């Protein structure tokens, strides 16, 4: 009789075995999950990633001596998106930070309380190696140490438009850009989510309020609906380079150098800085490295920031980050002859003092939102 039924195991044993296996698995995961790397650097997604070799190789080469000296592994945690998101993440983690250093916060973002709240001022002993004007341009209070800098300006693809078809490109004004033709051909970035996007907004405000003495929101009213505001620089770049109706983009003054290096010939990308009062203007962006407040390894963090100013690191910036290294004593690659240099233009930042930016930034952004909302 009994053989007609399959033999059943005692369910208690089954439950016990399953429970033991589950505990073992969870414990293993727990060990893996709680493994902490020794030294953590937060940075943004394209950091040192624009060269032929890719970020992994470059960072390894640049920082191997530092790792060897201190016997640690540096974990570059690449956060999706722009520096704003890194600041937001640092704020979220403020109670128990895991990062020691953050790279990529720029001279506008550092004016925000949110950024200063999560950083610890540190005056690097290597500051003597760089021009003090860069320190002043970024942050005289030393929440950040300059890492690289560049000019935010308009670029265009010479395959689609040029100074013959559009002579105004040589002496470009915001009024030229507000025409339906050029506004529909312009790609920029969301000032909330992207640092070149915010630099462009402040450039525009500086020109309207300080040079023209007009209400800056008028320009955005005029271009609203035509201008293409992408989320970040990468999105804007792909829109500009793949969409044949987009000719102009808010980007960096080093892009012609990148183009020349990429093509191996003359560049097919050109720059159109704004032209007012018989001179060309561009916005200067300085990016810095900062010590995370209450980070796990403050001394290592300080040493790391000092190390960032060494030529080992600084020489990698030009060809991999396509920005200017803050060590201006280092020789630049020859393609950088195609880039505009800070000495070639007047700097728009000088028109807006920092207190003005600190006081007004949030309301400017709110006004921008209001104008750009249909």
């Amino acid at each position, binding site marked *: 009789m009994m053989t007609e039924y399959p033999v*059943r195991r005692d*369910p*208690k044993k*089954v*439950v016990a075995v399953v429970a033991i296996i589950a505990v073992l698995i969870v414990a293993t*995961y727990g060990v*893996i*999950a*709680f*493994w*902490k*790397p020794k030294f*953590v650097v937060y940075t943004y*997604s394209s950091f040192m990633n624009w060269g032929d070799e*890719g970020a*992994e190789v470059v960072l390894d080469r640049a920082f191997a001596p530092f790792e060897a000296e201190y016997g640690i592994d540096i*974990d570059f*945690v*690449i*956060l*999706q*998106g722009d520096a*704003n*998101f890194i*600041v*937001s993440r640092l*704020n*979220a*983690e403020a*109670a*128990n930070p*895991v990062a020691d250093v953050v790279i990529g916060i720029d001279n506008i973002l550092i004016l*925000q*309380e*949110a950024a200063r709240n999560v950083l610890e001022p540190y005056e690097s002993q290597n500051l003597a190696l760089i021009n003090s004007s860069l320190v002043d341009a970024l942050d005289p209070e030393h929440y950040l140490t300059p890492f690289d800098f560049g000019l935010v300006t308009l670029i265009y693809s010479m395959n689609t438009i040029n100074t013959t078809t559009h002579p105004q490109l040589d002496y470009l004004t915001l009024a030229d850009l507000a025409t339906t033709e050029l506004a529909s051909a312009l790609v920029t970035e*969301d000032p*909330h*989510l992207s640092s070149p996007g915010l630099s462009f907004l402040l450039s525009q405000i500086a020109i309207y309020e300080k040079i023209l003495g007009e209400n800056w929101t008028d320009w955005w009213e005029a271009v609203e609906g035509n201008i293409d*505001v*992408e*989320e*970040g620089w*990468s*999105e804007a*770049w*792909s*829109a500009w380079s*793949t969409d044949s109706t987009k000719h102009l983009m808010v980007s960096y003054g080093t892009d012609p150098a990148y183009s020349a290096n990429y093509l191996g010939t003359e560049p097919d990308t050109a720059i159109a800085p704004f032209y007012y009062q018989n001179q060309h203007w561009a916005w200067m962006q300085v990016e810095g490295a900062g010590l995370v407040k209450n980070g796990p390894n403050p001394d290592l963090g300080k040493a790391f920031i000092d190390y960032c100013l060494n030529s080992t690191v600084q020489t990698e910036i030009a060809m991999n980050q396509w920005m200017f290294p803050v060590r201006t004593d280092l020789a630049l690659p020859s393609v950088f002859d195609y880039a505009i240099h800070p000495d070639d233009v007047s700097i728009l930042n000088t028109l807006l003092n920092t207190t003005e930016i600190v006081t007004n930034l949030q309301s400017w952004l*709110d006004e921008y*939102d*209001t104008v*750009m*909302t*249909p």
Partner: protein
Amino acid sequence: MIKQEHWNYVVLAFPIVLLFLFLVYPVVIVIISGLMSGTGSSFIETWSAYNTQFTATFTLIQASVSTLLALLVGIPGGLLLARLRFRGKALIRALIIVPFVLPPIVVVVGFLQMFGSFGIIDSFLMLITQSPTSIVNFAEGFVGIILAHTFYNAPLVMLLVSASMERLNPEIEESAEILGADSVSRFRRITLPHILPALSASAILTFLFCFMSFPIVLSLGNGVYRTLEVQMWNAFRWSDYGEASSLALVQILITITLAITYIKLGRVSENDSGPTSSIRTTRFTRYKLQEKIAILIYLILILVLIGGPIVSIIRAAFFDPIRQVYTLEGFSYLFTAGSTGGLGPLINSLFYGGLATLLSLIIGIPLAYAHRSRTRGIPLLSSTMVLLPLGISSITLAYGLMTVIAVPTGLNINPWPLIVIAQTIIGLPFTARSIEIGLRNIDPNILDQADSLGASRLQRLFFVELPLLVPSILVGAVFAFAMAIGEMSATLFIALPQNYTLAVAIYDNLGVRRFVQAGASALFLVILCVAAFLSMEKISEGSTGGTL
């Protein structure tokens, strides 16, 4: 016996404690601390800003229009599905649920390919007019968002309506016919009142989903059109916790109200449900000519709107609209390891999805039992806990998990367990509900027999109840898996690049216009979902519809 009772409570308390810890507590803390901390905009500043009011208005309007359209498209389909007798009905019914479980970001890929510029419709028009440039683009802005939401939710309406229609007693209709009622008044007096609870339930669910929509609006809204959820995501990224919490508070108040209404409606329809599949059915050939034409036109519309995007994902996987060429790059991307390849995200999707499925069964089964408990208060508590994730935005949940769980434990440097937890919680309503339906259908006599034959509590559970529950557990598992691999909002928030899932990778690739890479990943997810649902449908013999 007392000891046994205690164990019952422990088992029932386990999922409820977990949900409190990982859902209620983080969300409450985040909202309160955001409102109190004083960083960023205050509640009044947030809500008096024009762009917030625009976002709120847009969120409500698009949700209402989407709901209306989903009902318009879905009701005829539901009626037909119940009425019409045809071969392969079970298969069609199984396929209809597919759009609903597709990851939203996959739907975006399908929509861009079908309705977007250089998509199938656009290419067709360009061919006719010999135009070298794109002519139409329905896959962006308001129209795109509405169409995508309709695609998503019309199948939901169809399934709920047809499930309700099938319980319509044929005798009532026959009596009405004998008494001389024409088809219009039969519909108005008999069919409509019968399906009304199902209609309102599907309307509320649709509204709820559209109201909280994130990936679709983020991708198709061009940064101009935002739901509250999208604006919240932006506020978090700009470290404006005050604004984010102010938005989250209002959003939660609205969604919880909707969710409660949905539960109440569910109670009503549960009580008077008749036996299934009792409705009178008809063959297509029996219809009049005009009716046949109307049905055919409707079917073509459905094929274009709902079938089109799914099929065009196949084209999206091979066709690069920028270079206008067919390529296999998308698939080589899927199997490329390293930081630029899709293999990592693919493995993550399967790994997190698998774990989330297991976890949601572990939580879902006791919750389903709690729902049937005879102790006062427990069923209400468990059904509230189960439905809570429907009303809580994934972004708020993700932020809560980050600050309240990850930061104190240091998990934020490798946050994958949080992704699994978030994915589990988001799919839980569907998992728990399908198991609960299975539990409801177990004949109590069988359990009594097991008891009287001397089976212990554990023996009864393992050898009688669980085997009977296997089909509905499978349904629940497939739902959990589909929700987990499709989840994008919370994952996007929590993940570091090494934690990216395919859904997040698709969004990333779309952003930088790597369309074939996005297309191939989307196709992979579609095949995964369809395969899971078809195999499950085979095993469970068509009990998926009741889950919704």
